[in-house]
């Protein structure tokens, strides 16, 4: 079922005049197509959990509407919205077994929706096998690992076959290895059930790796919506560019003069179509080409050999933060360390320019990637 948010706003009033009102969700307008796995991505405190709570109905919006399909659910209480919610800490009932936990939502059904016991059991077992916890049905939550508890929580959310599945930071309580495994698992379960799924995360890698669509937000405002690769290749502003990608994008102070980008005194790239101004020049780590005659000169600091590729770590006086520049180049190159300097030329579509004042993206010819996105 598609989910549409229309001018959705949530304001938390400040406490007795001492604090300002907090706009946790500011004028959300977007549509999540049916059957997609969507990542709501942003740094902590950006209002993504509030957005999720609004969709679930646990929070009431200050303004705006929420549609599930053609139904306006804004005024409908959570239990009648047909949603499944997986909490960050799973919120499994500790005194009930796994099976009792999964049965719990079904046992709540009343009147004409009431199910006979054997049907409930059958449905619980079916969903348990979907998330592969058949073996654990008699255990209590305290006797299971974090990953197993996560599966039980998903099973409990799915057992009523919700229209929309919501996951709040589903992987944050798991260790690194389990996290990789579980995100694949979420993807698989979503693909098998085709239930529209929205999950909240602050981890861009997590969002990029499994989402069909990501929504990048900051301080209650949506900054960009798109397919992960699209958002990565074509960030609309500096925040989105800096937030996505590991290693992160390298940002320089630059100047555009006569349709050419200068970093320091060096003319590094021609940027046709951009008027003279100060800019932020963001260069993706994979946008550097090792070139002894290249226009960008950096001080070489270190070379990390990763096997598959090489990380060249260098510094430059014009970087936005005093961070090192991290460039990833192919192992075909040999880095000459003798001079203490390293020179690069740049791939134009990996260089993103942003206005110094507004931090909005400035487009020049060739600045968009050649890639064509399929729907």
């Amino acid at each position: 079922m598609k989910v549409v948010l229309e001018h959705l706003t949530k304001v938390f009033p400040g406490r007795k005049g001492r604090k300002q009102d907090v706009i946790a969700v500011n004028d959300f307008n977007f549509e999540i197509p049916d059957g997609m796995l969507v990542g709501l991505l942003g740094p902590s405190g950006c209002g993504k959990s509030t957005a999720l709570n609004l969709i679930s109905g646990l929070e009431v919006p200050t303004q705006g509407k929420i549609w599930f399909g053609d139904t306006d659910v804004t005024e409908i209480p959570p239990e009648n919205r047909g949603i499944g919610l997986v909490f960050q800490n799973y919120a499994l009932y500790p005194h009930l077994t796994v099976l009792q936990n999964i049965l719990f939502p079904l046992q709540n059904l009343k009147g004409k929706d009431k199910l006979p016991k054997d049907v409930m059991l059958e449905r619980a077992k079916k969903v348990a096998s979907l998330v592969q916890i058949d073996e654990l049905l008699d255990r209590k939550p305290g006797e299971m690992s974090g990953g197993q508890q996560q599966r039980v929580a998903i099973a409990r959310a799915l057992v009523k076959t919700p229209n929309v599945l919501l996951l709040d930071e589903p992987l944050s309580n798991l260790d690194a290895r389990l996290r990789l495994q579980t995100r694949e698992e979420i993807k698989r379960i979503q693909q098998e059930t085709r239930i529209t799924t929205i999950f909240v995360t602050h981890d861009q890698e997590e969002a990029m790796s499994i989402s069909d669509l990501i929504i990048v937000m900051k301080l209650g405002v949506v900054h960009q919506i798109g397919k992960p690769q699209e958002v990565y290749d074509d960030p609309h502003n500096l925040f989105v560019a800096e937030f996505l990608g590991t290693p992160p994008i390298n940002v320089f102070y630059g100047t555009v003069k006569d349709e050419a980008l200068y970093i320091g005194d060096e003319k590094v790239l021609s940027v046709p179509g951009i008027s003279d101004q100060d800019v932020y020049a963001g260069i993706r780590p994979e946008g550097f080409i090792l070139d002894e005659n290249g226009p960008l000169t950096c001080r070489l600091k270190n070379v990390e050999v990763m096997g598959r590729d090489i990380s060249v770590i260098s510094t430059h006086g014009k970087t936005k933060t005093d961070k090192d520049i991290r460039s990833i180049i192919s192992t075909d190159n040999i880095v000459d360390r003798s001079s203490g300097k390293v020179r690069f030329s740049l791939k134009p579509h990996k260089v993103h320019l942003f206005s110094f004042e507004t931090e909005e993206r400035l487009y020049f010819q060739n600045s968009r990637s050649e890639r064509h996105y399929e729907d």
Partner: protein
Amino acid sequence: MKTNPAKAWLYLIPAIVFLGIFMVYPLVDVFIYSFEEGYNFASQSYTGTGLFNYSYVLHDPYFLQALKNTLILVVITVPLSTGLALLISLGLSSIKPLKHVFQTVYFLPYVTNTLAVGLVFMILFKKTAYTDGLINMMIQWFGGSSVDFIDGPYWAKMFVLCFYTIWIVMPFKVLILTSALASVKQDYYNAAKIDGTSTWRTFARITLPMISPMIFYLVITGFIGAFKAYQDAVALFGTDLNSAGMNTIVGYVYDMLYGDSGGYPSYASAAAIILFVIVLSITTINLMIRRKNVQY
């Protein structure tokens, strides 16, 4: 880590010495007294050994009355006070305005002196030549006839004792249960809400199991406390509890030790041991039930 038994014992000595002198030794002594017939403190002598003390106590109508009173008190006050405390705590946790005011009000009896409260209860309930007391005035107002709760029929006196006991043990239970309720994470309630759980079912299947360890704690300590009741009865009915027919087991033990004729330590010890056995059995049963029902 290297263990050093000598050092460990050194650290344990103060506690062991004090517990030994003031707890273990008296307990053992009481046990021994209870089998020594006609023990006399002054001469430190006794006339024989055997089970006569127990037989005497168990046939003493005063003891039987005290046992009956205590059992009635336990059976009525423990469930009622715990249940009421749960209701009050649920009420307290669901209101926002004036919450702290109410919490303070409910906690007041805890910090008030038992005897002072007893005095107030006496004034409320007692019938004298000059006044029928506030409660009787209310009863009359509703069309009933007045009852002397302090010197009147047994059921009336028992009612006052139970009422008083519940009132005095309530604040502690409310305090414990309010904090137990507050410690149940909101996420569980949110999860229940999304699953469309009814209020009653949320309470019965989520809240109650979550706070059950605390409820069991209150029931167990409540049983022990009620079995040891004494000062509440004294506060209401004065020190001559036997003639008022309102004695408790602890009261009986006290009377046997220091009562008017004074000095039957052997009978007192036997009664104390009987009380100990009763409390031990009840607590064991409680713990067995608890182990079956609270499992996380």
